[in-house]
């Protein structure tokens, strides 16, 4: 049965579209002296993934005057509200495009007013219910032939690539089958239509006439099958949907890299490209950030370095042939993946401009390469790392360590990292930490033991450091801005007692014992709980933004990002202490404009006047000093973007969380 016959397609090409375009066109004409319209054509601005807007109407002087231009509440897209809208919208020609809602519908809005112009909805039934990556995803992509054939491309919850007409929202009939390419087909492996574990939540990469698609799976903490679906990357023709190439992120027998798998590749899967992809249209190279193979913390079925796990792979745009690769983690056991787009930055090196690639990571290293050939800009050195003792596990003796720039957040856990607001709190933190192993970055997970340790204390963890939103880069100053969080976690593993749930011998446990195990009390501490009197185990800042000058490979500045949590401000043990802003842990990216660095906060806090909400903050690009903050009713969930339409600069950010359902907020300055 074709995919199309199982679903109903409903697009609403509203008459409102043309009606709404009319005043927009008028506004453009009336404001001929105003700054030109500026689009935001890809998830992170453009396919170099710099999250930079060349706009400066909103400045340090007027940031606090921002008002809400419009808000868009997607509660009724899908049968229930969504609370975690991770998308960054696009704006092309005065129209904003985004995915929204629990069904991952596509909406087109008037970028000046927020009015809905059309929506596209695909009901995939069970195919979506059983998909590994649900909700609205990271957004859509845009393609144009430059002659009026303009398309929106996105991947559905059920892993289908769809092409829509930007003006009407109707599927492009000549693309795939009536506008749809079933991504579970033609993947060099058999994939069942319903139950097999593959999907995608990031946006397709569109470069010239090629659309590149990765793959995501169920989170691999305790995977059901070690021989999971493999996450190959593919290029398709933007006009027809025809497959142009495939890149085997796990090489097949006879292909380059196969010999890095000591047991072959039949017993493993994953190695998907679930993060955003970037491309250089001049070099005609696509940069694939590959995650690790099956088993986020257990690698017993994938002994060996395992290419192209946790590697950046540069492939030819038209053929998918590998040009270069660099493995950032050999045989990963910490779920570092590569979580975000490689940032294609042009930077001065020894007095000469170099086409470089800067890769932020969960492990808090920024890896910087010459993107033409994959050679490190600053030496990356293989260094010995701690070995673990999980039975059957394989450990890489070394890992690559960049010599520059310095790590932008904590790596590993030692006694000096534990909370020390007061001597009493520090003493208690030391007592807690004694129950676990501690060590530097790459200290592997360990087996839970009632008489030994409850696992390994780790920082960063599987959610960073930095994570999927990635960073921002100012092409004028060559400064890269990255948000990261500092949060303790536990790398722990236990013998698997339930082969129905997972066919691994050991499974992830995060500091907790196998079910039914006796736990001998150890004072006030219980396995898995990493708070001290309700406070985080590690010293703040718990969230920070670092500015890295890529002309030198050094920090320009680093600040705490996010207001001190209420429970810390009001903690009885901290009464009378002056505590600097602590920052807050979250999953965020800043935006950089010609005038400011802008980033919303993670988590709610009590705001001035007792209101509950979060701030959208602005910082000085050169120093990190506060330059303004405006109120949002909920924290940032999708990274901010900016565009200019009708002579006005807009900032749009997705918010939500807790019991506040998802919302798009658009800010602009008041009209004179």
């Amino acid at each position: 049965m074709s995919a199309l016959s199982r679903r109903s397609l409903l697009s609403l090409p509203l008459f409102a579209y043309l009606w709404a375009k009319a005043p927009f066109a008028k506004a453009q004409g009336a404001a001929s002296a105003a700054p030109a319209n500026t689009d935001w054509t890809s998830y992170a601005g453009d396919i170099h993934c710099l999250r930079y807007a060349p706009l400066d109407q909103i400045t340090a002087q007027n940031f606090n005057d921002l008002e809400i231009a419009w808000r868009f509440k997607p509660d009724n897209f899908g049968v229930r509200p969504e609370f975690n809208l991770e998308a960054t919208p696009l704006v092309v020609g005065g129209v904003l495009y985004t995915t929204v809602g629990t069904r991952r519908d596509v909406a087109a809005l008037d970028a000046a007013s927020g009015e809905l112009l059309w929506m596209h909805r695909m009901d995939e039934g069970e195919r979506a219910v059983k998909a590994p990556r649900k909700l609205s995803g990271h957004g859509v992509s845009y393609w144009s032939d430059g002659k009026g054939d303009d398309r929106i491309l996105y991947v559905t919850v059920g892993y289908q690539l769809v092409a829509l007409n930007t003006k009407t929202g109707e599927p492009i009939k000549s693309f795939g089958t009536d506008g749809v390419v079933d991504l579970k087909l033609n993947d060099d492996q058999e994939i069942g239509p319903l139950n097999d574990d593959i999907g995608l939540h990031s946006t397709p990469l569109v470069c010239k006439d090629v659309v590149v698609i990765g793959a995501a799976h169920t989170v691999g903490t305790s995977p059901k099958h070690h021989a999971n679906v493999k996450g190959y990357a593919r290029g398709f023709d933007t006009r027809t949907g025809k497959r142009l190439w495939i890149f085997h992120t796990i090489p097949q027998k006879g292909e380059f890299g196969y010999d890095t798998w000591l047991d072959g590749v039949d017993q493993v899967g994953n190695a998907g490209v679930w993060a955003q992809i970037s491309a250089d249209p001049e070099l005609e190279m696509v940069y694939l950030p590959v995650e690790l193979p099956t088993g986020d913390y257990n690698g017993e079925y994938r002994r060996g370095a395992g290419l192209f796990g946790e590697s950046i792979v540069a492939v030819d745009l038209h053929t998918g042939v590998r040009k270069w690769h660099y493995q950032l983690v050999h045989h990963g056991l910490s779920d570092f993946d590569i979580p975000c787009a490689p940032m294609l930055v042009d930077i001065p090196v020894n007095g000469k401009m170099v086409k470089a690639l800067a890769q932020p990571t969960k492990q808090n290293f920024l890896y910087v390469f010459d993107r033409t050939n994959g050679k490190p800009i600053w030496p990356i050195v293989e260094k010995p790392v701690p070995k673990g003792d999980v039975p059957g596990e394989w450990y890489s003796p070394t890992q690559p360590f960049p010599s520059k720039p310095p790590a932008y957040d904590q790596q590993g856990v030692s006694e000096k990292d534990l909370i020390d607001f007061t001597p009493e709190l520090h003493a208690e933190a030391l007592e807690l930490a004694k129950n676990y192993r501690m060590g530097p970055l790459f200290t592997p997970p360990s087996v839970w033991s009632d008489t030994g340790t409850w696992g390994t204390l780790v920082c960063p963890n599987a959610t960073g450091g930095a994570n999927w939103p990635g960073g921002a880069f100012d092409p004028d100053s060559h400064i890269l801005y990255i948000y990261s969080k500092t949060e303790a976690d536990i790398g722990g593993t236990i013998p698997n007692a339930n082969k129905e749930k997972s066919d691994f011998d050991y499974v992830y446990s995060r500091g907790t014992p196998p079910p039914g195990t006796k736990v001998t009390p150890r004072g006030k501490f219980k396995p898995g709980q990493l708070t001290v009197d309700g406070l985080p185990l590690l010293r703040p800042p718990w969230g920070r933004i670092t500015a890295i000058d890529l002309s030198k490979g050094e920090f320009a500045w680093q600040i705490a990002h996010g207001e001190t949590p209420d429970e810390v401000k009001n903690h009885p043990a901290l009464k009378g202490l002056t505590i600097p802003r602590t920052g807050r842990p979250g999953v965020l990216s800043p935006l950089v404009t010609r005038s400011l660095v802008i980033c919303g906060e993670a988590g709610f806090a009590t705001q001035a006047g007792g209101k509950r909400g979060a701030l959208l903050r602005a910082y000085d690009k050169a120093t990190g000093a506060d330059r303004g903050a405006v109120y949002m009713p909920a924290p940032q969930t999708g990274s901010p973007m900016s565009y200019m339409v009708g002579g006005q600069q807009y900032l749009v950010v997705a918010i939500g969380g807790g019991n506040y359902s998802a919302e798009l907020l658009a800010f602009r300055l008041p009209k004179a």
Partner: protein
Amino acid sequence: MNVMKSFVAAPLVLAVMGLAFAAAAQGGRVATAGVYSKAQADRGMTLFADACARCHGSSMEGLDVAPPLTGPRFLGNYLGQPAAALASRIRTSMPLDMPGSLGQQASADLTAAILAANGYPAGDAELPSGSSAQQAITIDAVK
């Protein structure tokens, strides 16, 4: 490196104290007073392992696809909110492959398990399953 700014905490202390005061004045209770039973939290944890752990992590630590349900990021979403806010969010939107399937009792049990995992003490009585009773219980800061 930039110097982090200090803050003026007094108005915020008053605001949060005000919330607790308001809850008490209305005959409400706070989570640190023990608003669920151990048996209920154990039921909730069994359910959590089946229905929730694959996205939120086996001990609620959060994964790439779902936020943590413990520690500062949990409090960042629910501090000062009624228990009903958390229970209704669970009941109406979770789990993602069968939203709305849990019902009031299971949602209350899961709320109890989340409170337990955050270090809130157990009490003698169960967390009620009805929304109006849950509205009178405020999630305060765990100590």
